[in-house]
């Protein structure tokens, strides 16, 4: 018995020998064995380092198999990038490490196959006052001098200068973050500047953001070129200059937002910051969101008011000064993980389409209900909506007022096939006023894509739209129009090739006595090839467009050939680009027959790359050639202009 006990003691001692022979040893999850500890020499473990790419040095004081050394930095295997030596390894990150905590996990295998693993942590900051701080700036400057031009060219200046400073800066400390992005521009030329360009300095765009991200609430303040998105029937996709403030409470699942932007689209310093409260030329509002049941049920309220005064940068309209406000309520739900998502919205607007007249605002309402979801391979959606006769919103000019109807959509995504079907029926004159007809529009669309071959997707779609009027007053013509459109597409995508062919046929059949039928046919061939050696990208294309007016029996054909190419030579010392279009257009009644050529090109030689670490000047030539040949009037106009170009880019970051 004593001998048995001795054997047991010896057995268990041998078994647990590693545990008590090397105190403080760290074991890997399996096949761990003992050995002297791996040490993190730099940064020291647990310390905070002020660096974006800190050197990481580790000592491994035992024999190890360098081919099996496994090092993970923040969960990324960096073993292939290590400088391994007999006593350990060094690593210089190739990208800036984000500020904060980092972990280094080192697993070594000894020559006899034993595994040793150890983990370390350290922290980084980009600078002493801020854990993240950077400013990246790029200046582009170009000067153009006219070398030669044809007499017909009137608006080519004899010289021109343009400069752009693109800047992005960020400061972050704990929960606070400040970010600033801008493009500042300078422009000057010998001729008068054509709006919206202006001579001198201007801010093409800017955005200043201040954020606080906490465990219980977030805060965001923005000033500059902001985008406001609220609901489908109120303010949507409105990109303007101004400001907005957003407060989020994570505990309460609450978000509050307020905004004030200039109604007109701005470029440059015109309009200042964009913030203001004058309703004639600003749009302002506030919204509140609250979520229940882990945001599976959400409520939203929005109120916005403002005015718009007509045309602005990028916008052209026949409407004059108008003003209004809107109050909206939206409920959304998603209790079944996107299998059934519901949405219901009701909105009330007061809108004055012409503030210069004696008529006051018109009040009206809009509401919609939508349900849809995804069930495995299938998706579906049903929508009913009503937009009142006078329902309009300043921040949403695409809204269709005086309309009521429904739409149904469904589709399936199978292994090799994708099918989508939609039908809808709407009518206008929602109040059924007897002064005007009621026009019913019914539409059905079927779309099919064959996707078995990833590099050869192809598809076909068919759409039919029918318009019918009823209750027409005596002096209003009856409407009975059918439009059929069929479209096919096929693409071949396999690098370096991308080739596409599309064709469409569309016929609008006016079934009234007017018989104003029209047909439109389009064939397009578009391709591009991108090669590395030589470095060149070529994109030829061809389009045939035919339009037929059956009433006048006139057919108009337009043939358009395009060629774009760009590339570089001599290790990017010489870069070039060319874009050209050749168009032939003719009508069957002989009223027009014309061909036009439009082309421009650019050739640049890089004088020095990163001179002084930041300066890269280039010199070259730019030009355009255009030709218009009008065969009916037997007139040919040739235009060309060539410019000497000196440009440079300067990059500096800190």
């Amino acid at each position, binding site marked *: 018995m004593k001998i048995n006990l001795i054997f047991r003691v010896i057995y268990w001692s041998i078994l647990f020998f590693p545990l008590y022979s090397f105190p403080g040893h760290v074991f890997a999850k399996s096949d761990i064995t003992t050995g002297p500890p791996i040490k993190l020499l730099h940064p020291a473990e647990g310390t905070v380092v002020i660096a974006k790419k800190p050197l990481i040095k580790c000592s491994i004081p035992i024999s190890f198999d360098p081919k099996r050394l496994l090092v*993970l930095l923040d*969960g*990324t*295997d960096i073993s*292939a*990038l290590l400088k391994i030596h007999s006593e350990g390894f060094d690593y210089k990150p*190739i*990208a800036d490490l984000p500020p904060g905590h980092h972990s280094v996990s080192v*697993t070594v295998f000894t020559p006899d196959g034993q595994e040793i693993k150890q983990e370390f942590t350290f922290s980084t900051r980009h600078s002493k006052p801020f854990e993240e701080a950077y400013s990246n700036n790029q200046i582009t400057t*170009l000067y153009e001098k006219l070398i030669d031009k044809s007499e017909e060219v009137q608006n080519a200046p004899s010289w021109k200068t343009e400069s*752009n400073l693109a800047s992005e800066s960020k400061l972050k400390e704990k929960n606070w973050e400040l970010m600033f992005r801008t493009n500042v*521009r300078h422009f000057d030329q010998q001729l008068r500047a054509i709006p*919206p360009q202006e001579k001198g300095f201007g801010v093409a*765009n800017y955005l200043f953001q201040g954020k606080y991200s906490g465990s219980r609430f977030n805060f965001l303040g923005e000033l500059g070129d902001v985008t406001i998105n609220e609901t489908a029937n109120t303010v949507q996709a409105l990109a303007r200059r101004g400001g907005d403030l957003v407060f989020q409470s994570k505990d309460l699942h609450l978000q509050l937002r307020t905004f004030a932007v200039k109604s007109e689209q701005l*470029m440059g310093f015109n309009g200042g910051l964009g913030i203001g409260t004058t309703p004639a030329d600003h749009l302002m509002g506030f919204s509140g969101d609250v979520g229940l049941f882990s945001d599976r049920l959400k409520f939203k309220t929005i109120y916005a008011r403002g005015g718009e005064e007509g045309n602005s940068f*990028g916008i052209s*309209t*026949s*409407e*004059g000064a108008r003003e209004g406000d809107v109050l909206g309520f939206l409920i959304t739900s998603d209790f079944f993980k996107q299998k059934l998502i519901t949405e219901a919205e009701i909105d009330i607007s007061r809108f004055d*389409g*012409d503030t210069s*007249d*004696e*008529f006051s605002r018109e009040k009206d309402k809009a509401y919609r209900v939508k349900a849809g979801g995804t069930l495995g391979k299938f998706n579906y959606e049903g929508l009913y909506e009503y937009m009142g*006769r*006078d329902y309009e919103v300043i921040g949403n*000019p*695409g809204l*269709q007022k005086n309309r009521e109807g429904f739409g149904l959509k469904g589709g399936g995504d199978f292994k090799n096939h994708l099918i989508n079907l939609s039908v809808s029926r709407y009518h206008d004159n929602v109040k059924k006023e007897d*002064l*005007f*007809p009621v*026009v019913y*529009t019914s539409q059905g669309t079927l779309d099919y894509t064959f996707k078995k071959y990833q590099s050869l997707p192809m598809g076909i779609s068919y759409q039919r739209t029918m*318009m019918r009027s009823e209750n027409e007053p005596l*002096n209003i013509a009856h409407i009975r129009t059918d*439009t059929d*459109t069929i479209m096919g597409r096929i693409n071949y995508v396999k*690098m370096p090739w*991308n080739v*596409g062919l599309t064709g469409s046929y569309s016929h609008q059949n006016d079934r009234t006595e007017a018989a104003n039928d029209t047909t*439109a046919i389009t064939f397009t061939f*578009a391709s591009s090839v*991108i090669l590395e050696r030589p470095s060149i990208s070529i*994109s030829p*294309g061809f*389009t045939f467009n*035919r*339009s037929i007016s059956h009433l006048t029996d006139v057919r108009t054909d337009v043939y358009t050939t*395009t060629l774009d190419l*760009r590339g570089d030579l001599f290790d990017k010392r010489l870069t*070039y680009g060319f*874009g050209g279009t050749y*168009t032939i257009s003719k009508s069957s009644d002989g009223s027009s027959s014309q061909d036009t050529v*439009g082309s421009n090109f*650019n050739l640049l030689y890089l004088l020095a790359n990163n001179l002084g670490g930041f300066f890269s000047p280039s010199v070259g030539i730019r030009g355009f050639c*255009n030709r218009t040949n009008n065969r009916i009037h037997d007139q040919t106009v040739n235009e060309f202009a060539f410019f000497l170009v000196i440009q*440079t*880019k300067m990059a500096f970051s800190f």
Partner: protein
Amino acid sequence: MPVLIVLTFVQIAEGLVTTSPSVISIPRGLQTARSIGYNITGVIDCTQANSTGGVFASGPNVLGSVNTFVSIPLSGGSGRTTETVVLPIRVMKKAESLRVNSFQYRRTFSYTCGRPVPPPETGIVQIALSGEAATEFGITRLQLYFENRRAEITVKRNQPALRAFVDIRYVGSGLLQGFWEVDGRILQNVNRHLVYGRSVTLESPEIPSLPTFAAGTHVVRFVITSPPPTLPLPEAIYFVTAEEFRERLAIRLTHPENRSEVNYSPLTFQWKGRDREVVYLLEFLEEGGEKPIFSAYSKNLDYSLPAPVLKNLFSQGKTYLWRVKGFDAENNNTGESPLFQFTFK
């Protein structure tokens, strides 16, 4: 005593004013502009026809007026000119309040002549008020923008796939014809049937995309040729910087094949890269996941999943996604593969 009576006939020229079109249809509740042509014939020995203003009227009821001066020089007894008439909402509302859905636009011309002046003549356009769906096909609003929803964007040199968008608000139905133009060069012609739905969004072509090989300012327009535009065409501006865009070329994943089943053992992943790339980053994701569960750098065109990583992070019977990104010597992301899928048996 007999009296000799001499009758003298003096020819007084009578003019004729016709309008083109003579009937127009406009949508209620929407300020609209229309181009009206005036053609005057048959006024002999007159040099000019002038009108101080026009009037919107329904019978004897005046609904509104236009206080613009129109002058038509006459030659050989005839002349023509056009006027863009803005039909304000107040005129339509007054017509509706009178329970009428049509009214007239009248402009009276008086003549300047060397001889006895003929009486003034009035050109009349009949205007029918209708809903937006039933009215003549016309464009009421154009908005041009880039992917940032603004009419201005700054991009890098040789940045591919730059596209512009145009939101077109219209009334009625018909064939829209126009073309995309950049710096005066046509990129693509557009023929498209529009059925009343109030607005449509068109995109500039993908090939050729907006050119970015020349630094500086470039101007994009969508030019509408039919229906005849009554609005000035808006412009969008993009500025190309001298900084080159680092194009990301496709990296082709070769092993394991997409959607394959593989043994649960250290697996070697392979791909075909590009000359520019010096370092590759593999990323592994779970199905439906957005962030990688594991990633690894490699200088070669393959990577073998280490056994410890396999055991700790990957499970048998589960499906994973993987992709490869390539970086050049300046650590710019120059290549990317699509996401491939594999399942450990």
